């Protein structure tokens, strides 16, 4: 019995007589190789990144590299902190904006919206997902950034300027601009997955809530959202994954300064952006190594977030079945 066939289909069990068939065995080995190749590729990426990064790890030290904020290719001083900070802040801002909008969109499309509007809105979500990131970047640089500089940022400063995240001169480029662009880019991912999740909510739940006299909003709140919560969390983490790795659009609007600022108006830098910017012309093993090390850091962040996502989804999935729903 080739183990790989266990995973996919219970149908395999219905024909045990053919288990010793050479064709089946070949098939089993074939897909094992395909499955295993993924692990091999991931391993090779890690190995190669580690190998290239080695000279800079050696010279700079792990701890110093991760927690230093100097980035000086001329004197070969490298620190990852501003880039880690920029990546996390911009992705966080993106998720903060995109999550409510996506969930609202998905509810609109699956529960509330007039039928005539659903198709065009669903279609535009697909269009958003299909736009290449460099187009987002150009649009961000030439349309959104001037708008942020002249309207949005001064407005935020006037109304919420007491918060440290909305202080400093409004220059347009910076964490906020990158976050907003990323929000636009991950919105289709989160929204389309959420729509699919909402479709799986059993109608009996909604009908039950309505039958108990709940309003439409109440039925969504007490029956639809709790049921869909694990799926929505999964969707946001898919979106977050895209935001963490996005390169082109971010580098065009983030300002590309390896600095750490509390204000969202200030220019920053992100891990993928600095790799894309400096790798082609990096000379010297330490500079190339530092960039590869940044790649490893990004790899690590993605892994950690994926792990958190799994734990969260499982925890939340257990929740409603046991206690609430």
């Amino acid at each position: 019995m080739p183990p790989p066939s266990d995973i996919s289909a219970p149908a395999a069990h219905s024909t045990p007589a053919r288990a010793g068939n050479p064709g089946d065995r070949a098939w089993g080995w074939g897909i094992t190789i395909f499955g295993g190749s993924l692990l091999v590729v991931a391993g090779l990426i890690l190995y190669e990144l580690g190998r290239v990064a080695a000279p800079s790890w050696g010279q700079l030290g792990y701890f110093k590299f991760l927690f230093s904020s100097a980035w000086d290719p001329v004197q070969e001083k490298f620190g990852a902190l501003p880039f880690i900070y920029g990546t996390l802040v911009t992705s966080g801002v993106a998720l903060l904006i995109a999550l409510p909008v996506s969930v609202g969109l998905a509810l609109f499309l699956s529960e509330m919206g007039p039928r005539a509007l659903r198709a065009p809105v669903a279609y535009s979500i697909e269009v958003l997902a299909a736009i290449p990131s460099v187009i987002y970047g150009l649009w961000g640089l030439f349309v959104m950034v001037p708008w942020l500089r002249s309207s949005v940022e001064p407005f935020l400063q006037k109304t919420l300027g007491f918060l440290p995240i909305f202080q400093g001169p409004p220059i347009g480029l910076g964490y906020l601009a990158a976050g907003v662009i990323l929000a636009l880019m991950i919105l289709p991912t989160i929204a389309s997955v959420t729509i699919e999740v909402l479709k799986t909510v059993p109608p009996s739940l909604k009908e039950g809530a309505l039958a108990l006299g709940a309003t439409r909003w109440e039925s969504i709140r007490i029956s639809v959202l709790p049921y869909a919560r694990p799926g929505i969390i999964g969707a946001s983490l898919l979106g977050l994954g895209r935001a963490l790795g996005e390169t082109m659009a971010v580098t065009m609007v983030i300002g590309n300064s390896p600095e750490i600022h509390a204000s969202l108006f200030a220019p920053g830098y992100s891990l993928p952006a600095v790799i894309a910017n400096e790798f082609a012309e990096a000379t010297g093993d330490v500079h190339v190594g530092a960039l590869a090390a940044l790649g490893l850091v990004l790899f690590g962040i993605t892994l950690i977030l994926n792990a958190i996502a799994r734990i969260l989804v499982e925890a939340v999935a257990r929740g409603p079945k046991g206690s609430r729903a």
Partner: protein
Amino acid sequence: MKKFALAALLTLGASAALAADPILITGAGATFPNPLYSKWFSDYNKLHPDIRFNYQSIGSGGGIQQFTAGTVDFGATDAPMNDAEQAKAADAVHIPTVLGAVVVTYNASVQGLRLTPAVLADIFLGKITKWNDAKIAAVNPGTKLPDAAIAVVRRSDGSGTTYVFTDYLSKVSPEWKEKAGTGKSVSWPVGLGGKGNEGVTGLVKQTPGSIGYVELAYANQNKLPTAILQNKDGNFVAPSIAATSAAAAGVAIPADYKVSVTNASGKDAWPIASFTYLLVHQDAKDKVKGEELVKFLWWAIHAGQATAEPLEYAPLPGPVVKMLEKTIQDLKVQGKPVPVAASK
């Protein structure tokens, strides 16, 4: 008619393919001269249909690496190899092909802004922060300067343009040399980073009060306002192709051509100029490709120079061409020199 053209194309393609295996010479490197090199390679292919070039503009750093690793027949770089790089590729010869220049562009209501090296360095060091600073006013007598903040814009991607610009600043300002230094990517004291010439231009155009640097070719093609800069001889010079070529004439060129021509003397010299190079082997191993490459170099420094100016590159000045003739004649293939003078 269309059919005929198609048939002609097909036969052309077929005859090219049939004509005894075309010689394919591969190269990789700098992006800055890519438009010129593409034109050169296609022009040269028309003259010598059996020779084809494949050039990949992956950046100077990649060009040096691939040339050193021996995966390409020639490399191309904006900045000459440093000692460590040269040590790994001991027989690499630098052949300057043309000159490029870096200009200062700005977005402020000032016509014909004039800058001295010290003022330019202070702006990029973040020490001069206002357009109506006394130091700027002193070199722009009679010009009304706006009471606005200066926003510095620079390249975020590693680039030869940044190398040339920071090389110039390091020469004219000891403080710059100490704080930032010369490099394709440096630690900038102030400013926002834009990706590529187009990124810098985009930021400068839409940010009031900004100042940045781009390639001369890019500034000319997009009709950007450029600052007039004081050169080493004390003259205020507007950037131009002629002024760029003049910079190479004002510097003593060493035999390996590894020289910075920024801050060159000469009354008309534009101070932020540089050579861009092809890298070839002193003694090539492949007989056929090596000989053809040497012949191409000979063509490039003579007939090829005429293509430079229409594409906004500065041609090599006469004395440099004379020097290069000697260098190219000294190149060898499998230990033997290549007779090139005839193929001129």
